[in-house]
């Protein structure tokens, strides 16, 4: 068992505080609630379903809007369901795309069933194997009192380093309160598209 899991709400808030005008694509469940809790924005597109699609939707935005930074924030199981996306993304090499995987090693939304990243699957290693060189894991360092990552530096990597970038953040299996974005898909797509239209 690793120690020093990160606080997901604090991590996401700290990163999104530094987003500038980046577009954010949030995978379904807790990552969407985390992004919403950090502050709603027309530049956030939240999934409420379509599991496995967040990274590829982010790639689509990044390809259509190459001058816009795009951050995908999703969970470990959502990312694994779309794990082939890493190969597709690596082939396109979008310099403006970053993916933050909040890895709690469980299916947090459905009853905390154990996921596959606690026992065996290493998402950053899979991403590297698919051809994304800038793929790494933060958090979960062994030992008491680990300070965790420098959030400002991590945000800099996610928003400024040449992409594609994949960061897997080992976060605590926690029970934050719901912070729910609109469920109206037409509203979400209309405001997101309009916010990007000026590029």
């Amino acid at each position, binding site marked *: 068992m690793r120690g020093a899991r990160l606080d997901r709400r604090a991590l996401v808030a700290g990163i999104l505080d530094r987003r500038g005008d980046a577009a954010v694509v949030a995978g379904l469940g807790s990552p969407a609630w985390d992004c919403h809790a950090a502050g709603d924005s027309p530049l956030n597109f939240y999934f409420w379903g379509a599991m*496995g699609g967040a990274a590829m939707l982010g790639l689509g935005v990044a390809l*259509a809007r190459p001058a816009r930074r795009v951050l995908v924030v999703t969970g470990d199981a959502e990312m694994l369901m779309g794990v082939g996306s890493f190969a*597709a993304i690596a082939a396109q090499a979008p310099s403006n795309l970053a993916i933050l995987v909040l890895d709690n090693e469980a299916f947090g939304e459905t009853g905390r069933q154990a996921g596959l990243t606690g026992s065996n699957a290493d998402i950053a290693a899979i991403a590297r194997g698919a051809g994304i060189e800038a793929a790494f894991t933060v958090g979960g360092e062994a030992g008491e009192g680990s300070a965790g990552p420098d959030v400002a530096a991590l945000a800099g990597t996610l928003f400024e380093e040449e992409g594609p970038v994949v960061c897997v953040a080992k976060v605590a299996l926690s029970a934050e309160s719901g912070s729910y974005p609109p469920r109206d898909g037409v509203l979400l*797509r209309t405001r997101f598209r309009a916010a990007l239209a000026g590029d």
Partner: protein
Amino acid sequence: MNDPDISPYGDSDGSDWGEQVFRSLPGLGIRHVATVPDAGLGRFLELCEADPGIRLITLTTEEEGIALACGTWLGGELAAVAIQSSGVGNIVNMLGLPNVCRIPCLLLVSMRGEAEERNPWQIPVGRAVHDLLAALGVDVFRPESASGVAPAFAEAAAWARETGRPGAVLVGQHIIGAKSFAGGD
């Protein structure tokens, strides 16, 4: 399944529909083509790959293409997703995304499992394609001849753009031709 007939059936009129669809892309504002390749799409895909103005995005599974096309449209650009009929079976849950969000998507589907199919593994999903798409709010365009594919594609693109409903052009096996397994059992 409410489509008991093996249809359509007939001859291609010999038009180079793959080139015609490719040539229509600039006029339709399409610069991104996502694909899990199929032999039936071969001509279209080779032209896309050779054109520096088209970004060909190779997928590992067809559902990635639906999510990608939704993303490009959110970024202001209609994309085309070019897949084989069996791949329609892989996109079912992801079609909830364009359905709920009313995002235009454009699919070009090369059919298997129709008349002259000799691989039984292609038949189950091939026969279900129309019903799967219709059940999930994708409107189906079915050109009768090779020369009708590019016009159907243009119509499906306009349909998607103007109505926010995904459109799929099914290119029948009578247009593409059947795959031979000569020498097999």
